[in-house]
């Protein structure tokens, strides 16, 4: 470093100076583009907050309608076991047909029908049944409502039976009952907010990693400035890499704001693993995914087209990432496709670091896969860009 600058080191210095001024230029241009900055800020702050608060896959506030033909101690007891926050009792009705109409109109999700002589039959040990009608138009909610309701009814039945058979200790112990007792790991409170806000953050990172460099490149094409750059001594590589560098820095900053400004303080998302590792792998992901944006920019002529192209690329990428639907439930051929999505590995890495506290020793295979796939994508984008101008 202290040696006199020879022609080689001078050339290197100029190379770096060029890269630096170009990167600075990209940042300046981005921050003067008010709509895109507003979109960026919203996506990484307010949108994360709203999604974290709003989206629940757990059963929450399912509206319950009851037709109680018995009006006994037992029926009241059963009804009151359907409790908040899972269920919300809408009321009782006299006519069972009315209940069906409520379901049809979507005003109730669960309709519980208790037959006459319910209490009497329970007490005498006769078999009895309650009917449960569930609207599963929204299948995850509906199915879990059905599941919860079945559990409640079953437990109520068991307890009644136990109480009836006798209060003696032995007899109850002799009953062959398997108790399934589960223990939740990594997200002990089974807090949706964590998962949803992390998923949202990853979605935003992916979208912007493609959109920002693509928009920056296509803007140069649209305004004819790229021609001016091509007759200058810049190489195509310098033109491209400066955009990717600038946008990676911006996205990393936005991620930090989202993580330390919203997710950690508001939702209490734990950051169990190494922050440095998380940010370096995010940088790797953004950098490589940007290649896809650059490829998209070479296929389009203006910003509107590049916006649509981004949608086209992002939608399948998100679907195949396991962010919305877990990989395990996909058909086999889709699972093979998913192996090709770098986002899938990045999701594994993020969950691993943030929620499980995993380190590089457990994540190395995902990191390797992501780096290889992303590298290939970046190479493809680079190749498209060079080819376009030669």
């Amino acid at each position, binding site marked *: 470093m202290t040696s006199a600058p020879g022609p080689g080191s001078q050339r290197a210095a100029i190379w770096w*100076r060029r890269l630096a001024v*170009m990167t600075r*230029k990209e940042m*300046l241009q981005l921050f*003067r583009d008010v709509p895109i900055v507003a979109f960026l800020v919203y996506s990484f702050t307010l949108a994360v907050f709203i999604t974290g608060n709003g989206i629940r896959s757990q059963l929450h506030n399912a509206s319950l309608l009851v037709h109680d033909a018995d009006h006994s101690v037992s029926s009241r007891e059963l009804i009151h076991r359907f409790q908040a926050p899972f269920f919300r009792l809408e009321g009782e009705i006299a006519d069972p047909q009315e209940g069906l109409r409520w379901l049809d109109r979507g005003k109730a999700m669960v309709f519980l029908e208790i037959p006459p002589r319910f209490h009497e039959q329970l007490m005498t040990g006769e078999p009895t049944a309650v009917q449960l009608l569930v609207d599963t138009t929204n299948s995850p909610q509906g199915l879990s409502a059905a599941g919860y309701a079945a559990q409640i009814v079953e437990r109520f039945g068991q307890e009644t039976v136990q109480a009836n058979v006798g209060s003696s200790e032995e007899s109850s112990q002799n009953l062959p009952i398997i108790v399934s007792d589960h223990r939740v790991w990594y997200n002990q409170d089974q807090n949706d907010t964590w998962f949803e806000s992390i998923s949202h953050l990853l979605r935003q990172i992916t979208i912007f990693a493609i959109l920002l460099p693509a928009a920056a490149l296509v803007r140069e094409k649209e*305004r004819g400035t790229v021609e001016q750059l091509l007759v*200058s*001594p810049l190489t195509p590589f310098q033109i491209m890499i400066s955009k990717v560098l600038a946008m990676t820095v911006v996205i990393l900053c936005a991620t930090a704001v989202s993580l330390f400004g919203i997710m950690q303080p508001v939702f209490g998302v734990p950051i169990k693993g190494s922050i440095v590792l998380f940010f370096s792998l995010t940088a790797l992901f953004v950098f490589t995914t940007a290649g896809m944006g650059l490829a998209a920019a070479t296929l389009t002529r203006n910003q509107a087209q590049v916006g649509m192209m981004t949608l086209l690329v992002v939608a399948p990428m998100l679907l195949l990432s396991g962010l919305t639907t877990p990989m395990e439930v996909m058909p086999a051929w889709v699972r093979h496709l998913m192996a090709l999505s770098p986002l899938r590995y990045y999701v594994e890495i993020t969950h691993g670091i943030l929620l499980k506290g995993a380190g590089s020793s457990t994540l190395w295979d995902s990191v390797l896969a992501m780096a290889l796939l992303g590298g290939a994508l970046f190479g493809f984008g680079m190749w498209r860009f060079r080819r376009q101008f030669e």
Partner: protein
Amino acid sequence: MNALTQTTTSQPLIRVSGLEKQYRQHMAVRGIDLTIRQGEIYGLIGPDGAGKSSLMKVIAGVLSYEAGAVEVFGITVDSEPAAERIKHRLGFLPQGLGLNLYPELSVEENVDFFARLRLVPERDLADRKARLLAITRLDRFRDRPMKHLSGGMKQKLGLICTLIHEPELAILDEPTTGVDPVSRRDFWAILTELVQERRMTALVSTAYMDEASRFHRLSLLSNGRILASGTPSEVQALVPGSAVTFQAAPQLEALARLRKTFTQVEAMGPLIHVFTEETERAAAKQRIADGLGDITAGEVRVDDPDLEDVFVALLLRQGRLKDAGDVLPPSSARLNRDGLAIEAKGLVRDFRSFRAVDRVSFQVKQGEIFGLLGANGAGKTTVIKMLTGILPPTGGEGRVAGADMRKAGGVIKERIGYMSQAFSLYLDLTVVENIRLFAGIYGLDKEETRTRLEWIIRMAGLAGYESDLAGRLPMGVRQRLALGCALVHRPRVLFLDEPTSGVDPLGRRHFWDILSRLARDEGVAILITTHYMSEAEHCDRLALMYAGRVVTEGSPGDMKRHVEQEAGHLFEVIADQPAKAVLELRRAGFAGAALYGTRVHMFCRDPVRDKECACQALASSGVTIQSVTARPLSLEDVFVYKVMALEDQERASVSGDSV
């Protein structure tokens, strides 16, 4: 003048009074009064941002306005329903090449679409289509998709589509911007014919001062106001004076001396052009001689001032004196003038089976301004792209700034400056940020960047604009900033691809002033392409390209002399029935006779005998001649003459082959 007296008796078709139009804080039109009569070709002349487009859109009923009154066909256009009542009677061609057309449709499909949209009966459509496509020479390309047409062809097609329903009023917004002189002449041919035959009225805007003679009446616009209105000769008469052109050496010293006494002095290649208020020819010459002192002027020529001189004089009268630095700060390094800056030898470039550039050779010395002219699609831009290293040539070789084009592309890129057709700087960066960016790209260190930044700001007159975003600058200032950025690394060779589109005459003069100083003072070689033939006059040497080849090369003077030898001298005839006069002259064997507004231009090989013959032909057909005067040949005449001759040759050889 008869054509005019006819029109004065007819009803005004458009009446605009006190019109004001505002976009947010920006006043685009500030109080315009205008009356256009039926059967007129009315011109709006002025630079970008003068308010031409806003005025035309208001008249076409597609833009609302803040104050004033607009009446078209006797209907007051003040609401949507009122606008709907005039729309079917007019045709509107928006600004921009082929913007009203559908790129995927063929020429014929585009015409058919617009005709059916306007409910033109099928029989009329067939007739009109055949005729219009024939005049514009587009009939050979009926099946070609519009997107594959050249700029000039697109614009001609756009005009056909606008006029296919034979509207009573045609509103054409800068129809000839970016169109080469030959296509431009075709364009005027259709318009003059329709106006003559169908009594159509046309409102046309242009940024080309030299098109002014095409109009019956015109208004000069600047900054949302009308500077002057009237017939071309009335407007010219507003600023009496003479234009003096001569040679004087040393040129720079002569320019400096003359600038002390005259407000309008410019270098035109080896010549100097001065406007003086003196109308007497001898006195005008004397004033120039006084201004020059001990420098003697050679080949002095005194003409009536052209419209550009008048426009500039009017702007100057308004006190819009140029803010820009008059003294170009000397840059430390003067370039060695002896070497060749550009040497092209047999350059060839093929795109698949199409040969865009065919064995092009020329040389440009250091300190020379070299103009590359040609129709749209003649191969000019491809030549520039090869010389600047964006495009590898298929064959041939070239040296640029002392390096081999094929081997040392990187070295060349460091030694040249380039300014492209479209404004190619970052509109969302400030003036200083743009300059610093390019300084960085060319690898200048801190110290150099600082000195060059100062130099550019002085040179281009950018003081006061430093922290303005480039997008907010007036066109002329932007153009000088782009030039500054192209010069940041002291290039030896400067490439300019149609750099002055849309810049007002003052801005354009200032721009050329800088260019000639760069060439004369610092020895920079400049290669420029332009569609403004008045600009080509500034070049030291010119090469005309046609179909990928260089067909003639020489100084502007040589080229004119050459055409005068071949085709004869140019005469302007003022007669009472100009349209009839053109027909009669063509019948009498003057094939080049053409209508310019109310005047007729023709070539005479033998000034005395031909003139006599023409006068007789006209007199025998009952046309009264008011005057026949010799006109200096313009480069536009040269360009059109050359290209038309080549097209005729080509057609002859094609039909010869097919026989």
